[in-house]
């Protein structure tokens, strides 16, 4: 069965510290993975997807098929990064259903 696990409910860091939000997945096929973010009072929105291999707002995520992980990283956290982050797995080519993890709230203190 497909599953996405985000082990941390809350991650608190100080501004300028490195950040790593963990995501592990379970999927028998070739995964399509995403990170979505929800800032306070804003809509849930895509942050990045692994096939794009891009850096958005300083965040990167590398798909590690051996460890079945897709951790989100940023070398220097900013206060505006405080938000709820969801890792998601696309389960089907036909319908692009997403399976979400339970989310990690990132708090960046000044």
């Amino acid at each position: 069965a497909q599953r996405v696990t985000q082990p941390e409910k809350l991650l608190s860091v100080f501004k300028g510290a490195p950040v790593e939000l963990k995501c592990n997945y379970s999927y028998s096929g070739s995964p399509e993975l995403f990170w979505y973010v929800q800032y306070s009072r804003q809509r849930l929105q895509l942050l990045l997807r692994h096939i794009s291999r891009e850096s958005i707002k300083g965040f990167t995520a590398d798909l590690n098929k051996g460890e079945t992980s897709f951790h989100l990283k940023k070398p220097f956290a900013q206060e505006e990064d405080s938000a709820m982050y969801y890792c998601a797995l696309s389960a089907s080519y036909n319908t692009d259903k997403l399976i979400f993890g339970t989310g990690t709230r990132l708090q960046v203190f000044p």
Partner: protein
Amino acid sequence: SQTIHQWPATLVQPVGSPLSLECTVEGTSNPNLYWYRQAAGRGLQLLFYSVGIGQISSEVPQNLSASRPQDRQFILSSKKLLLSDSGFYLCAWSGGWETQYFGPGTRLLVL
């Protein structure tokens, strides 16, 4: 450009009452449509998805149902609400194997 609307934004309903939440998409045709429930500590749970008019797939057994009477309209309903139906409901659309775009959500409180 494409936009997605949901209403109402907030709803307080008594147990046993009916429910109808509406989601509409503008600026695109034949979108895939989704209903999610977002609960604290439980992330986003996919409830229903639709790839076309009248085509609804249910992901989890529950007290809710969905309908797609028009190409860009997706409705979440219940005949009798339960306390456990309280939550934040999100509608989303996608163009097919692409990013999903989320609406602003509806906060439902069942008392």
